[in-house]
């Protein structure tokens, strides 16, 4: 039926009848991906008849909520581990998992000219504190540990480490100057392809495992047209451009 009806008529109908005609996706999104996701959702809602209701939070919390019956239809995680687990536990729809973004790690200081040669700086240890995200919880923290390991400075820097519970808190430690430097996400300090504040050193990708962020469709969303459409949209060119703008890579 639908293909015989013009799109504008469908939209008009949808507006008149609330959300009855168009589908709504209810998704959970890792906090670090909040800004790009908001832009993508806006575009998605303009380009399709669907709407998206997104909840942002730490992947660990979202995972626990999903385990306990939260009504999410998809999860955009900050790591690969939690989507994999959900898949194994049969809460996620098999074969829907994919890497929607790859994070870029940056050694950053709120002060200009502090971080020039990041490798030399890490080796000299010439700073009061080094903030990292809790490696047990956050992929950026894990990548930071791998980087220090690869440079052979992990043991030397251990006494200077302060841990944020997530990458946002780590950014606050550095931004307020309480830690002179820290490993944060490039997406936090970049705007329009430029580091806008302080000084930073983009950690070469060969020093740590890629920070893959995976998305997966959950059981509750397996019949949702909106979720299917959104996943397809995320893989499309328009969304990918936004993701790059915000300092992420894609695969």
């Amino acid at each position, binding site marked *: 039926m639908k293909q015989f009806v013009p799109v504008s008529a469908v939209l008009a109908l949808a507006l008149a009848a609330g959300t009855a005609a168009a589908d709504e996706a209810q998704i959970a999104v890792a906090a670090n991906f909040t800004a790009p996701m908001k832009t993508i959702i806006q575009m998605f809602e303009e380009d399709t008849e669907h709407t998206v209701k997104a909840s942002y939070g*730490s992947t660990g919390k979202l995972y626990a909520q999903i385990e306990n019956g939260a009504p999410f239809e998809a999860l955009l995680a900050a790591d690969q581990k939690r989507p994999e687990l959900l898949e194994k536990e049969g809460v996620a729809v098999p074969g829907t998992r994919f890497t929607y973004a790859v994070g870029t790690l940056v050694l950053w200081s709120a002060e200009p000219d502090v971080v020039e040669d990041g490798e030399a700086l890490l080796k000299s240890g010439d700073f009061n504190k080094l903030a990292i995200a809790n490696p*047990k919880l956050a992929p950026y923290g894990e990548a930071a540990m791998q980087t220090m390991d690869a440079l052979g400075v992990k043991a030397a820097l251990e006494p200077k480490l*302060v841990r944020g*519970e997530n990458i946002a808190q780590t950014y*606050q430690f550095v931004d307020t*100057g309480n*830690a002179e430097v820290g490993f944060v996400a490039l997406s936090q300090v970049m705007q329009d392809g430029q580091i806008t504040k302080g000084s930073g050193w983009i950690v070469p990708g060969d020093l740590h495992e890629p920070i893959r962020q995976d998305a997966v469709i959950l059981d509750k969303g397996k019949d949702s047209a909106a979720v299917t459409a959104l996943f397809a949209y995320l893989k499309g060119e328009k969304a990918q451009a936004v993701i790059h703008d915000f300092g992420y890579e894609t695969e």
Partner: protein
Amino acid sequence: MPLSETDLEAIVLTLELATVTTLILFLVGTPIAWWLSRTRSRWKGPIGAVVALPLVLPPSVLGFYLLVTLGPNGPVGWLTQTLGIGLLPFTFWGLVVGSVLYSLPFMVQPVQNAFEAIGERPLEAAATLRASPLDRFFTVALPLSLPGFVTAGILTFAHTVGEFGVVLMIGGNIPGVTRVASVQIYDYVEALEYGEAHRLAAVLLVFSFLVLLALYSWRPDHTRK
């Protein structure tokens, strides 16, 4: 299963933090409570409201303000650096400062209520019996408000044990220095290590229950008939 070494370390640190915080708050909170209970100044309202603010403010907000204020660009950070103390965030004493502010109403309000409940009369009686203001405070006001102090002390201690948001914001999660039990539990939950989280949480739960049980069962001597 026994608690791991890091869990024990976190518990010991938590108890240390709560003890130091409670002791400092006895010293800091008592004069504030006394002033609030006796003053007719127009500042009573504003000061009382400021003291109560931590009850309303999300701990993460208070923690963030502390991070900014105590940091190298904040006024307190400038002061501590000038005094040669260094910066307070990510140190035990930084947590103490945060906990003192965060638990302030839990100390001040019960003590203030106790002071107010005494009324003027016993203090006037003491004055006519040659007791100076300081003398009256220590020999009449303090003993008569002992129940309020016990309540305040236990609430402050328990509240500091259960504190999380502020510690998280200014602690930096350093083992043995700022990683207290509540943060440890949070880490376990976030890392999906629910078994460990349960064990440590159970210890805190039992502890808190015992403390509150003691509070609700305790009655001062002279209120018994």
